[in-house]
């Protein structure tokens, strides 16, 4: 995991250097004003809200925020995620909180409405608990009734993101973010292997996809140049 974090921080300056040749030609005061944030967007994930209403096995919410610094967005997400599954032989539930922090690079820098098509990276972290009750009859080894619990498990991962944010009306933006999640690492557990990490998803695959459909409100904090 530490290796992937290093890679993330190595890549970010590389993204920045793509604009270096343009920026060195700017005067110092112009550069300062260019990198001054012009607004902060606060939003929420509509899919999480919808799933909480209509999917019996899921409860959760997620809030998002970003601030523009020239063509970069500093992004922060915070959410809650709980699952509750029941099968013939098992009951599983988990609950936890997570956050993601990272940077997006906007490729629509000249759009007067501040619309964005972006690619970025995130570092995600989650802390969660799980309960698992198994009641099965194995055809070879017989009956098992067992309760398993994991408490305060910590997990972290990396994400590559892409998406768009489009101004819909005055201060309202909508957007989506597709996430490719990888490099999951978790703290050690005793007898129960975590099944679902809030913010990441299922753990039985090394990588997974996520998708957010977000509604934002933008608060301007500086006048546009």
């Amino acid at each position: 995991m530490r290796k992937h974090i290093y890679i993330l921080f190595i890549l970010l300056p590389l993204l920045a250097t793509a604009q270096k040749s343009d920026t060195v030609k700017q005067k110092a005061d112009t550069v300062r004003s260019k990198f001054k944030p012009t607004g902060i967007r606060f939003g929420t994930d509509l899919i999480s809200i919808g799933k909480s209403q209509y999917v019996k096995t899921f409860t959760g919410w997620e809030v998002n925020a970003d601030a523009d610094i020239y063509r970069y967005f500093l992004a922060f997400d915070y959410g809650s995620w709980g699952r509750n599954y029941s099968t013939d032989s098992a009951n599983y539930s988990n609950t936890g909180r997570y956050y993601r922090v990272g940077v997006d690079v906007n490729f629509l820098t000249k759009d007067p409405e501040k619309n964005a098509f972006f690619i970025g990276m995130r570092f995600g972290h989650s802390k969660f608990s799980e309960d698992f009750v198994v009641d099965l009859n194995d055809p070879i080894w017989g009956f098992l009734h067992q309760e398993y619990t994991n408490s305060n498990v910590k997990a972290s991962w990396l994400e590559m993101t892409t998406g768009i944010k489009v101004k819909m009306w005055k201060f309202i933006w909508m957007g989506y973010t597709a996430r490719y999640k990888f490099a999951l690492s978790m703290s050690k557990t005793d007898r129960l292997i975590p099944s679902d990490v809030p913010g990441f998803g299922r753990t039985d695959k090394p990588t997974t996809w996520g998708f957010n459909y977000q509604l934002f409100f933008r608060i301007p904090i500086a006048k546009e140049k």
Partner: protein
Amino acid sequence: MKRVVWFALFLVVGVSCLDQPDCFRQDLNLIGISFRKMYDGAADTVVLLKVSATSTDSVFYENVYGATFSLPLNYLNTNTTFVIEQLVREYLDGMSQTDTMFLSHSSKAQFVSEDCGERFVVSNLQLLRSTYDSIEVVSATPSNPAHINIKVYRCPRTNIMRMSFRQLYMDKNDTLSRGKLDSRPITSIINTDAVTTPWLQDTTMSAILLPLNPNTNSTTYNFKFDNGDSNSVTFNYHIGTEQIIPKCPTQNLYSQLDTTTNTFKILKISKDSLQDPPVTNVETFRCPTTNEIKVSFKQIRGSSKVTDTLHITSLTTDYLGDSSVVSADTSAITLPLNPDATTTKYTFNVTGETTSPLTLQLKYTTTTYVFHSVCGTQTIFTELAIDDANTSFYSANMIALLPDVRFPSVTNIEITRK
């Protein structure tokens, strides 16, 4: 409106990408056991009569052979004890040996999905003890499907000889002077020191492994074959001792293999000392049958010639006298020629034909030839032809395809129904 469509499109695409559960992983609790020979580490094919575990009534294997096997660990517990009953080829009576393998491991549960339920991941495999000569854990991580986790080694088996059956051919050019391996249907092979349990029964083999009695200097085997042949052979040998491999005890070494009594027509000692893996020590040969021809039945269908079926209830060969009841639908039949005459007549009682019986008389010339010195002088048949005057087979074309009799038999006569 355009923006709404734009967002709706991406929403559908995105939601469809959300991962749905699939049951591609199951319990990771299988271990692979590889049986090997201690002296070279090569795979050892074993016969497992029964493989079970102490904590279940389930039987994992019964009467199987192979060199690697997979077994499930008890993921509900931290120990699994396997009981493995194995045929031991060194024993004269085909008796088995039972070994046990005490294993410890740890197990973790995981919920996979609503559709797939739970799974168990077993790890940290350790061998507590076993009754095998030598055994090692090479991988402590069970998997699914299994890979090799445990290797079981055995000491050399020094008392097993190999005997092969060979068939000699009518081979004038002597390119097959030793013939070819001969798969013989065997009714039974019994070691006279363990008469109650046949060493082999009801099988077809071209080579067999026979253990020599380690307590005496001779071992006798009685053979019964499906064709009615019965043979007996007594092997004599010298027994020495040596520690072949440091991990194994002092073992017998068998040499100077020979026979005292033998009823096989031809039996040859090709190697007089035994080794593991066994090499052919003894070969028995059958001489070529020189007087058998094959007759096939055909019919014309359209513009092509296809196989015809004749329902023969009985068949009489003149020089043999007796009538053999066939009572079968046949499209080809092997017939013997009289070596003491120049004609042989066959009478077929058939059903479903306008005329019965049908007769077929063949004429030929006989000479003698020595194909193999061990077989002596044999009669060979040439200039084979149909004696039309004494043949009453239904209106047909009869062709003598091949005037010389060969072994193995080839179709000499073809009878085509019009």
